[in-house]
């Protein structure tokens, strides 16, 4: 049971590979260095029963990573980001229209503000690590300067709450302009002209 510290021989017929018994779940391989990737995978697949938890964990991680990868590959994030941003823009547009109309409707403002805060909560989940290349229009600094990006999303939510707090057309006008400023601040820095 010596630990094998020499580099593994590449020859499939070396004395070291003779120790391996493919597919037998009851043979423990100790002290033998797996020489090929197939041997490694089979080793894990053929591990004895007490290592099944490790095997299950390995399979779970693989599936999870693959699903996220498939989501990226399927291009789900790009359209989802766009739809979320468009819904936020719709709210700001409606608020801007109501400011111009001069009609103050506190309930409508609150509904818009809540939609903005919720939309931004959702937006926060749409830029996970690893999604740098998922869609066009994102600057790499979203991920390299994550704190700055998250900060601007939070500031945008605070502006949304400011809209709910407006008491008349004059204060609503200020609040909506402030909301627009937060949209702009983030887009200037973190959105590229890739559309």
């Amino acid at each position, binding site marked *: 049971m010596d630990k094998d510290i020499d580099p593994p021989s590449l020859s499939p017929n070396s004395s070291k590979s003779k120790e391996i018994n493919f597919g037998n779940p009851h043979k423990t391989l100790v002290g033998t260095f797996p020489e090929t990737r197939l041997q490694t995978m089979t080793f894990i697949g053929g591990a004895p029963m007490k290592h099944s938890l490790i095997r299950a964990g390995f399979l779970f991680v693989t599936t999870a990573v693959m699903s996220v990868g498939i989501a990226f590959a399927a291009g789900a994030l790009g359209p989802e980001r766009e739809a979320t941003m468009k819904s936020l*823009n*719709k709210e*700001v*547009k*409606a*608020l*801007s*229209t109501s400011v111009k109309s001069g009609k103050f409707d506190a309930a409508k403002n609150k509904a818009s503000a809540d939609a903005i805060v919720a939309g931004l909560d959702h937006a926060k989940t749409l830029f996970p690590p690893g999604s740098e290349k998922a869609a*066009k*229009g994102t600057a790499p600094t979203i991920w390299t300067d994550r704190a700055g990006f998250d900060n601007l999303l939070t500031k945008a939510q605070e502006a949304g709450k400011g809209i709910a707090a407006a008491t008349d057309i004059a204060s609503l006008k200020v609040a*909506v*302009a*402030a*909301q*627009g*400023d937060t*949209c*702009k601040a983030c*887009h*200037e820095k973190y*959105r*590229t*002209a*890739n*559309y």
Partner: protein
Amino acid sequence: MASRRLKTVFGVAATAIVAGIAGGWWLSAPNPVDSASLPEHVANLENGRVLYTAGGCISCHRPSAEAILAGAKADIPSGGSPLVTPLGTLYPPNITADKETGIGTWDAAAFVSAMQRGVSPEGEHYIPAFPYTSYARMKIEDVLDIRSYVMSLPAVKSPNHEATLPLEPVLRRGIGLWKLVALPKPFVPDASQSAEWNRGAYLVNGPGHCGECHTPRNALMIAQSSNSLEGGPHPDGTGKVPSLRNLIGRKVFEDTADLASALSEGEGGGYEHMSSGGMGDAQANLSHLPAADVAAIAAYLTTLK
């Protein structure tokens, strides 16, 4: 004999090369404005302020983020904020009236030479990230008014950074040749159009320098006036710049008033695509222009087919 012919060939080639370099040197020479050629003009500070805003000077000549943290005023053009270009990183200089680090010692001719000919008081060509290829279209009196306004701002001591550019002396001299083709003629109003339209055309093509991004460039990086404001690849290298032509026909905006609102309100008015790729700075400046000027810009743009 072969060696004598070879010597002749070399001699002719060498002469041609030297002549070519001398000719190129002469053609690419800086062409500053002569003080004597400047018109008599009484400064109009308000006009200078409006055109300084339309010109977007602060967007490039603002202080760096570090300087602002150290107390510099973000709305005073003391320069230093890095401008990353495909050629290298530039540091737009201090254009406040400081005599040591700003333009306090520049006379009117030096200012006009910079703004409209792209030539520094030291006789160097400026990298055309400084949009003198648009400012060249402006009236000299307007450029003089901008100078008066800028000189009226607080003088700030802020030393300039050297640009990081490859083969800088060759590059700058080469720009002298480039300018022979790239510098446009001054703006001439269209007599068949309204005063408002002409004001809009002047603002867009002169101080507004919209075409610097929105007009596509050829292989020599010269903006193609035959494709004016058609959009194309973003000059920064990433993404696209939209076309400003046929805006209403393509249903990008409902009407002229809608475009004017977009320019002055930006995302705060629920308008999209008004912030990224550098448009945020442009829109911020537009939001500070008089309403009549924004209306004029919209009136001009919406007539482009």
